[in-house]
């Protein structure tokens, strides 16, 4: 970290909070936001900066809201039609990251996000789990004991029914994959 310069001098606290909230992958509490600063400015400064920021964003297409888990930005209802058209454009196919994550949860679940990252060898974006959750394919079924008590993810009956399966036991095991491999070779041989 070569850049040690603290921008507090250049920016009011709310500008930094704004950047932190947009960069974060989850809502943040005042306690968490305090942790970002050194020295700790205290709750009052953070709370009043959040209130100013909230006023600043009033009447725009995004608003700063305080939900049970903390503070986050959210789009306002009126931009919904634009976003629906945005989401309709993407995800024509499942990305490899999505497919692998789903496969890990299906075959190895319940698993934590950390375990999925470890199996895939890369840090898993929480957004990816959110997408699968929003699709109704995975859910939190408990928490692993230990530091942070990470959530345990498992597949839902909805995924099984979307795949046309009655139970997890019907997930294909290797011989079927091998059979598919066999079919590919057969196709290559007799065109």
């Amino acid at each position, binding site marked *: 970290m070569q850049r040690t310069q603290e921008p507090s001098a250049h920016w009011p606290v709310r500008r930094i909070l704004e950047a932190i909230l947009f960069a974060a992958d989850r809502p943040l509490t005042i306690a968490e936001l305090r942790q970002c600063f050194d020295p700790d400015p205290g709750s009052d400064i953070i709370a009043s900066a959040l209130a100013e920021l909230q006023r600043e964003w009033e009447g725009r297409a995004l608003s700063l809201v305080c939900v049970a888990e903390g503070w986050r930005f959210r789009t306002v209802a009126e931009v919904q039609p634009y976003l629906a058209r945005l989401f309709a454009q993407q995800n024509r196919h499942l990305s490899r990251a999505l497919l692998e994550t789903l496969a890990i949860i299906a075959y190895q679940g319940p698993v934590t996000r950390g375990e999925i990252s*470890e199996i895939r060898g890369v840090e898993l974006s929480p957004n990816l789990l959110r997408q699968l959750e929003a*699709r109704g394919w995975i859910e939190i079924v408990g928490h692993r004991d230990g530091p942070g008590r990470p959530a345990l993810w498992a597949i839902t009956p909805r995924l099984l029914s*979307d795949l046309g399966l009655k139970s997890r036991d019907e997930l294909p095991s290797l011989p079927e*994959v*091998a*059979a598919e491999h066999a079919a590919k070779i057969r196709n290559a041989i007799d065109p």
Partner: protein
Amino acid sequence: MPTSAVNATLYETHHPVARLYGAPLAELPEDLYIPPQVLRLLLEAFEGPFDLLWFLIRKNRIDLRDIPVAKLTEQYLEYVATMKALDLDLAAEYLAMAATLIALKARLLLPRAAEGAAGEEAPEEDPRARLVAQLLRYEQYRQVAETLDRLPRAGRDFTWTHPVEVAEPIAPPLPVPTLQALARAWWGLLARQDERRPHEVVEEPLTVTVVSQALVETLRLARRPLTFSELLPPSAERRYLVTAFFALLELTRLGAVDLTQDEPLAPIVVALTESADEALARLALEKGNG
């Protein structure tokens, strides 16, 4: 005494070979005792023989003209000996480079007249020219890799904003994957685990028994003998190939398939025998069901 030779020369350079607690090791005082673990760290930091050679060339940069190939070779061999003494997992490439350097050195001991007498020798035969070209090309990429590392990078120097919450959730229109795609993703992950550090992931599905069944099925569906590479496509995952290779040996041993080769180096042809099913049943009994 290769170790002390390394100790004596290592810190003459400003090229930080490794970092200890964030400080470049090359800047440590010369007389500092180097614990073997630190020396190990240092030597492990070389990215291969080219990197080590460049280190030596740069280290002796005061007057490059004074360094004969003999000296470079000796220093290189000292480092390689130290790596061996420290029981480092020495890549074969280091030894190959040592052999190249020794060959160069030996060549220099031969009388030069021989070269002159032949008049115009084919210049492409000169191994020195090849080594120089390889070293230069490597150095280009080593330098530009450092430049790339200095560019501001997402995750280190800045952060992309994370998608904000949407007022009313819009279910992303993710298409339902096929069962095969899902199973293949899992299979690929298992194969990958194998190449990485040991992991607790259960890997039992890919056994010789299971793969033997798949191979027999493939041969049966093909309705004709297949060549080795048709049966084991080189594009398949390595773990599968290795298992399939053993499976093929087992199948041959049990008389389920016949392997034939028309002549040396010709494709090996794998044919199913009549007793394939019987052999498979025996294999399942011997190995337990996969």
